[in-house]
């Protein structure tokens, strides 16, 4: 059984529709959830966190929906947002007290260890913390509990490379025992290349693909050629063609049924390139 199962969720707003999103994430893996700004990533994560209600479909965590058992559902999720979500006028000591009051699995000693390791000020108000400190505090608050799923919404944005690297290491350590997973929404595709096992890509509220990262990289090739190499027949089968003075670049699906002419140069794509050409195709 998958740890997280999202089936046909949807949300309708005045200017935006999230449509029929479905994916599943087995225990022990990291999924990158990617898309442009306004694609619907945060909306999806908010539905999983049950901060907003889906118009249809279900979300199950370890086989249970929120309605089945609201307290264990929330207890098993650790959420880290793109900005600090702690009340700004509280101190770290207050946060520790709140976590102890609400989460049965909260381990104060583990929390104190993270606080000491990361030199977080105990007596200062959170509003005086730097962005890096706030992110570390969010991580300390979720890692000092026995969660099964970490949901990260652009959590590494705006962080310096050292902190980002530390966080990526933490995430890999988090899933290392094979019982926990991470759902990771990000713009920084470099992070995704490093740690994601699955990639889920959405655009304008629609799911474009959701596959293991290795399968994606195996399936697609980036093809480059001169202006004369781009025949109409080839154009029909290539994805997201971009042209410049020297020729063109496009994504080639190895399952599309044609063989590329030998004069084209091909290479394994990065996630960034796959996303870019997919978006080009849709525009």
């Amino acid at each position, binding site marked *: 059984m998958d740890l997280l199962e999202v089936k046909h969720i949807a949300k309708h707003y005045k200017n935006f529709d999230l449509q029929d999103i479905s994916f599943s994430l087995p225990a022990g893996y990291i999924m990158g959830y990617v898309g442009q700004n306004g694609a619907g990533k945060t909306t999806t994560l908010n539905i999983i966190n049950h*901060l907003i*209600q889906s118009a249809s479909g279900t979300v199950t965590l370890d086989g249970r929906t929120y309605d089945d058992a*609201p307290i264990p559902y*929330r207890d098993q999720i650790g959420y880290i947002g793109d900005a600090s*979500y702690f*009340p700004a*006028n*509280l101190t770290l000591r207050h946060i520790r007290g*709140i976590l102890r*009051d609400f989460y049965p699995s909260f381990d104060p000693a583990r929390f104190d260890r993270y606080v000491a390791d990361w030199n977080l000020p105990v007596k200062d108000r959170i509003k005086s913390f730097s962005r890096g400190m706030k992110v570390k505090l969010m991580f300390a608050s979720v890692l000092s509990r026995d969660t099964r799923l970490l949901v990260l919404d652009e959590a590494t944005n705006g962080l310096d490379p050292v902190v980002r690297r530390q966080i990526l290491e933490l995430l890999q350590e988090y899933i290392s025992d094979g019982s926990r997973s991470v759902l990771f929404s990000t713009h920084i595709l470099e992070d995704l290349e490093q740690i994601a096992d699955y990639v889920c890509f959405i655009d304008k509220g629609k799911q474009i693909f959701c596959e293991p990262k290795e399968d994606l990289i195996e399936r697609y090739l980036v093809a480059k050629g001169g202006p004369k190499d781009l025949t109409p027949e080839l154009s029909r089968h290539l994805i997201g063609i971009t042209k410049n003075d020297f020729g063109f670049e496009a994504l080639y699906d190895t399952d599309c049924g044609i063989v590329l002419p030998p004069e084209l140069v091909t290479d394994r794509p990065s996630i960034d390139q796959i996303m870019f050409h997919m978006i080009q195709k849709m525009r």
Partner: protein
Amino acid sequence: MYMLKFAKIDLLKTRSFSWLLLFPVLAVCMLSFSNDGGPTMAITYCQFAGIIASALPFATETREECGFLQMLPCHPGDDLRGHFLYGFLAELVATFLGCCALLVSGLLRPELGLGPVALYPVLFGITLLLIVVQNMLLTFFRSENAQVMQLMRMVPSFAFFFGTAALMEHLPDLVGRFLGWLTLIRGFGIAAVCCVLYGLLTQLCVMLTQRKDLL
């Protein structure tokens, strides 16, 4: 149990009980140096502060905080019940402080007396009803517009304070007849009914917002 924990978070966030202490001091000063209004106005002054304090959990709530506070494991609606419980406690403390102010000013100016004591629990009950309406408005019509929010927070407290003053000034006969009927037991009875109504309306508010998005 969870609603108590949420009320505790509201207390930590707003730290309103510390500034609430200022109001009985002001009430004592008012009673010591002025003859306007008398003991009843002094207690309504503290209760007016209690109404303002009771709306603070809604006023200090930010969208960002939802990622933490709304993610805390609890039964659906416990966070809202916590806000309402906080409002109840704020008004209870404000009324208690008002009574303390009356006792202190009674010692300083014995000729003032304690006023119509049976009326104070009734005033407490009325403030509870105003708070519950105010909090329901703040829950259902939460607005991004700070001025609209400010208005929703200010109208009930000012309506109570100036309404009580106007009633005593312009309808003294009606107030007199009511005070003649009112005994301490009847006063506490009215307050108890208001407390029950407060609880029922809180529960109704929770039920009506059950399927509402938290963001």
